[in-house]
C-alpha cells in the first residue's frame, strides 16, 4: 500500500485539537445514556428493596468491572508501547493514555462498592467477617460452621481493611500510571526534548509489574471472591486478556470515528487499522487460549471445589451463553479477523471492533451474573432449571448504561484538552509512515 510520505511540514504545529462541539451527537448520546442509566440505577439502589435491591449490587459490580477492563486495557497498551520502544502507535497512543486516566472517574463511580450492605450482598465473606469480627471471632464461628474454615485460612488476604486499601490502590495505580505517562509527552510538547521519551520508557518498564498485580488482584477481589471458596491461578491472566482485547476494540472505533470527523487524516492510515486489527486478532486467540486452558484443566481434573464455577455456567440457560461465548468471542472473530486486506478497511474492522466490545460485555456478564441467583439462594422458577432473579437484567442494562455512558461522556469531553496525538514525539513520523 502506498501513500503520500508524511513529513513534519504536512502536520500542523500543536497537533490536532479535538473540538467536542463537532462530536456533539455522540457526546450527547453518551450523556443521555449516562443520565438514563444513573437515574435508573438510583431508582434501583434507593427506590427498591429486598431481592431487587440486592440483585442490583451485582449489576453495579458488573458495570464497574466492565469499565475497569477498558481503563486497565488502555493503561496496558501505553505501557507496552513505551516499554517496548515501539514506534507505530505514536499516532494513536494519546487516545489510550486518555482512556487510562478515566480510572479516576471510574473509581468515584465504584464508591458504592464500599457500602457495607452492598459488600455483604456481593461478597459473602464480608458478611461473615462483620458478623464475627477478627480472626478469633471467625475461628470461633468456624467451630460450629465448617464452611467458614477457608475464611480463617485466608484471613491474611481477605480481610476488610486490606481489601479496602487494595480497592483504593487499584484505581490509584492505574490513574497514576496513565497520568504520569501522558505527562511526559505533554512536557515534550512544551519543550520538544527527546529525553521525555526515554523517561517514559524507563517509567513504563518500572510499573509493568505493579500494573500486572493490579489487574490480577482486582479480578481476584471483585469477581473471583464472589464465591470465596473458588480459586484459579489463571484468573488474572484471563481478565488481563479481556482488558487488552476490549480496549483495543474501543480505540479502533474511536479512531474510525475521529477520522470520520476529519481528524487524524495525516497520521493514521490503513496500516494503523491493520496493526490494531492484528493486535485485536492476537488477543482474540490469546483470550481463547487462556479461557480454554482454564476451563479444560478444571474440567479434566474434576475437583469439586474448582468445578463449581463452571458447573453453574454450564447448566441450564447459562450453558447457551457459554456456547455463545465460544462462538462469538473466539470462532467468529477469529475467522473474520484473519483476513489481511479486510483489516485495513475501517468499515470492516469497525464492525468487528463493535462486535468485540459486545462480546466482552457478554463475557464479563457471564463471569459475574450467574453467581447472583446462587448466592441469593433463589430457586429456579417452575418449569426452569436455572435460578434467576426475575427482571434483574433491566438493572444490569441500566448499570452498564450508567457506567459506560458516564465514562464515554467524560472521555470524549476531555479529549479536547490536549492534542489528539503527541505532536512532538520523535517517533511521530515513523508512526505516520509506518508500513507493515
Amino acid at each position, binding site marked *: 500500500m502506498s501513500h503520500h*510520505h508524511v*513529513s*513534519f*511540514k504536512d*502536520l500542523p*504545529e500543536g497537533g490536532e485539537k479535538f473540538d467536542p462541539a463537532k462530536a456533539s451527537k455522540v457526546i450527547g448520546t453518551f450523556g443521555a445514556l449516562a443520565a438514563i442509566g444513573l437515574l435508573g440505577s438510583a431508582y434501583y439502589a434507593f427506590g427498591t428493596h429486598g431481592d431487587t435491591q440486592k440483585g442490583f449490587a451485582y449489576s453495579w459490580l458488573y458495570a464497574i468491572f466492565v469499565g475497569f477492563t477498558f481503563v486497565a486495557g488502555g493503561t496496558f497498551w501505553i505501557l507496552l508501547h513505551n516499554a517496548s520502544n515501539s*514506534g*507505530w502507535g505514536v499516532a494513536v497512543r494519546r487516545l489510550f493514555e486518555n482512556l487510562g486516566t478515566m480510572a479516576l472517574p471510574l473509581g468515584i463511580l465504584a464508591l458504592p462498592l464500599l457500602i457495607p450492605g452492598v459488600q455483604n450482598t456481593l461478597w459473602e465473606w464480608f458478611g461473615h467477617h462483620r458478623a464475627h469480627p477478627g480472626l478469633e471471632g471467625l475461628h470461633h464461628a468456624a467451630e460450629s460452621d465448617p464452611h467458614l*474454615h*477457608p475464611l480463617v*485460612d*485466608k484471613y*491474611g*488476604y*481477605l480481610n476488610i481493611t486490606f481489601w479496602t486499601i487494595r480497592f483504593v490502590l487499584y484505581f490509584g495505580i492505574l490513574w497514576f500510571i496513565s497520568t504520569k505517562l501522558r505527562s511526559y509527552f505533554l512536557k515534550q510538547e512544551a519543550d*520538544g526534548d*527527546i529525553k521525555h*521519551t526515554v523517561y517514559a520508557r524507563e517509567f513504563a*518498564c518500572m510499573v*509493568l*509489574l505493579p500494573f*500486572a498485580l493490579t489487574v*490480577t488482584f482486582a479480578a*481476584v477481589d471483585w469477581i473471583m471472591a464472589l464465591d470465596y*471458596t473458588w*480459586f*484459579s*491461578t*489463571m*484468573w*488474572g*491472566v484471563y481478565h488481563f486478556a479481556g482488558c487488552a482485547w476490549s480496549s483495543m476494540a474501543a480505540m479502533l472505533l474511536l479512531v474510525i470515528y475521529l477520522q470520520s470527523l476529519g481528524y487524524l487524516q495525516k497520521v493514521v492510515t490503513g496500516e494503523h487499522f491493520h496493526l490494531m486489527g492484528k493486535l485485536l486478532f492476537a488477543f482474540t*486467540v490469546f483470550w481463547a*487460549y*487462556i479461557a480454554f*486452558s*482454564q476451563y*479444560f*484443566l*478444571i474440567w*479434566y*481434573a*474434576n*475437583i469439586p*471445589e474448582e468445578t463449581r464455577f463452571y458447573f453453574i455456567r454450564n447448566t441450564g440457560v447459562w450453558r447457551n451463553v457459554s456456547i455463545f461465548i465460544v462462538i462469538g468471542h473466539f470462532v467468529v472473530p477469529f475467522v473474520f479477523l484473519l483476513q489481511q486486506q479486510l483489516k485495513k478497511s475501517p468499515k470492516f474492522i469497525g464492525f468487528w471492533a463493535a462486535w468485540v466490545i459486545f462480546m466482552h460485555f457478554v463475557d464479563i456478564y457471564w463471569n459475574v451474573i450467574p453467581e447472583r441467583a446462587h448466592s441469593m439462594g433463589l430457586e429456579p422458577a417452575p418449569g426452569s432449571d436455572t435460578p434467576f432473579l426475575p427482571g434483574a437484567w433491566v438493572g444490569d442494562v441500566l448499570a452498564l448504561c450508567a457506567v459506560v455512558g458516564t465514562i464515554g461522556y467524560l472521555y470524549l469531553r476531555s479529549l479536547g484538552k490536549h492534542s489528539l496525538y503527541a505532536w*512532538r514525539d*520523535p*517517533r511521530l*513520523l*515513523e508512526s505516520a*509512515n*509506518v*508500513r*507493515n
Partner: protein
Amino acid sequence: MAAATDTASNANAQQLVLEREPLVLNNRSFSWITNRICGIVENRQPLGWWFLFLPSVLLTGVMVFCFAYLIVTGVGVWGQKQPVDWAWDITNFVFWIGIGHAGTLISAILFLTRQKWRTSVNRAAEAMTIFAVMCAGLFPAFHVGRVWMVWFLAPIPNANAIWQNFKSPLLWDVFAVSTYFTVSLIFWFLGLVPDLATLRDRCKPGIRKALYGIFSLGWRGSNRHWSHYETAYMLLAALSTPLVLSVHSVVSFDFATSVVPGWHATIFPPYFVAGAIFGGFAMVLTLMIPVRKIYGLQDLITMKHIDNMAKIILLTGTIVGYAYCMEFFMAYYGANPFELQTFKLRALHGPSVWYYYAMFFCNVFAPQVFWFKRFRQSLLAVFIVSNFVNAGMWYERYVIIVTTLERHLTPGSWRTFDATWVDNWTFIGTFGFFMMLFLLFLRFLPVIAIGEVKGVKPEADPHYGESHDRGLQEAEVMGETDSEILASQKAAPAH
C-alpha cells in the same frame, strides 16, 4: 542507545527524530556479509571449534553407552522408584523441549511482529531448536522401557489390537512434539534454501557443490522464487506460532490435568510457555556469545541484539516469577491443606528445598540485573546470567516433577530421589550430543540467514536514497514489508 538528530522543523517549533540503531554495524556491504558468513563454512575451522567438537563427540559416546546400558539392563539403572516414577528423564525432557522454543519463537512470532533484529539470530536459534527437540525426544522414548516398542505410541493398527489412550496428555505430547519438530524442521530448511544456493554458487565443483545443489532445490533467486518463498515463509510462520504455544501447553497438561497437589494449577500452560521462551533465549545467548566472538560476527550480532535478548530474558523471567508467586498465593488462598503443604515442603522444609531456592535465584533474581544497561552491555554478565537461567530452568522442572512426587499424598510411601550415575551421565551426554550437532551445523551451514540480514540494511529498502532530500535516515526507521525487502534482493547480486 538511539541518537537524537536535528532534522526538519515546521513553522516554529523544532522537531526531533529518534533514530533506530542500525542492525548491521560499520555499514558492512552486502558482499562483506556474504563473504563473512559463507567464510565460516568454506574456511578451516578455528582451533576453538575442535576444542569443543572432540569432547562433544566423546560425550555423545557416553550418552550412547548409557542408553545401551539401559537397554541391556533395564530402566532400573535410572534412579526412579516409587513414588518418584518420573524423575530425571521427564525433567530432562521438559528442559530440552523448553530450550527448543526460542528458535521457532524468533523465527515465527518475531517475524509476524516485524522484529527485524531477529534476522541475525534466527538461523542458529532454529537449528538449536531442532537439536534440542531431538535431545528431548530421547528421554521419554527410553523411559517407556522397551525402546524398540516405542512405535506403539503412534496410532498404527497392530496385531495385538493395542490402541493408544487418546484421553492421556502423554499421547497428545507425542503428537504435539512430533508436529512441532516437523514444522520447525521444514521452516528451518525453507529459510536455508536461498543461502544454500549462495553456498552452491561459491563452491568449486565436487561433492559439496552437488549436495548444496540438491538441497537448494534449483534456487536461482528469480523474482518468482522470492515471491513464492515469502508466501511460504509467511504461512509457515503463521502455522508455527500456535505450535510454539501448543507444545509446551501440552507438556504442561501432563502435570496440570492431574489431581496431584503442586501439579494441578490452571496457570500452567502460559507459565510453561513463558518459561520455555525464557530458557530458550538463555540458551541462544549461551551459544551465540561465543560464536560471534570466535567467527568475528560482531557487526552482525551487535550489542543491540544482545541487549534485546537480555530484555526478553528479564521480561520472561519476571513472568515466570509471577507464575511462581501466583501458584504460591493460590495454594494459600485456595485453602486446600494438601496444596499448601506441597508448597511448604517445596520451599520451606522439604528434602529438596535448595532446589527451590536455586530455581528462584536463577530464574527470578539473577535476570533482574538486566534492569541495568551496564549488565546488558557486558558480555560476561549476559553469559553468566544466561547460564544461571539454563540451570534455573532445569531446577524448575526438577522442583515441579521430583520434589512433588517425593512427598506425595501418602506419607508412608515418601521417598527422596537419588540420581544414579546413569542418570547423571545420560543427561551430561545429551549436552555433548546437542553441542556436537550444533558444531556440525556451524561447520556445514550458514549460521546467519544471509538473505534476511541483508534485507534489514537501509539500502535494501526500495526507496533508499529517496528520503535523503528530506534529511531523514528513514530506511532504518521505517517498517517496510518483508516482501519489499526480499524483492530488493533480486537487484543485489546473490553474493
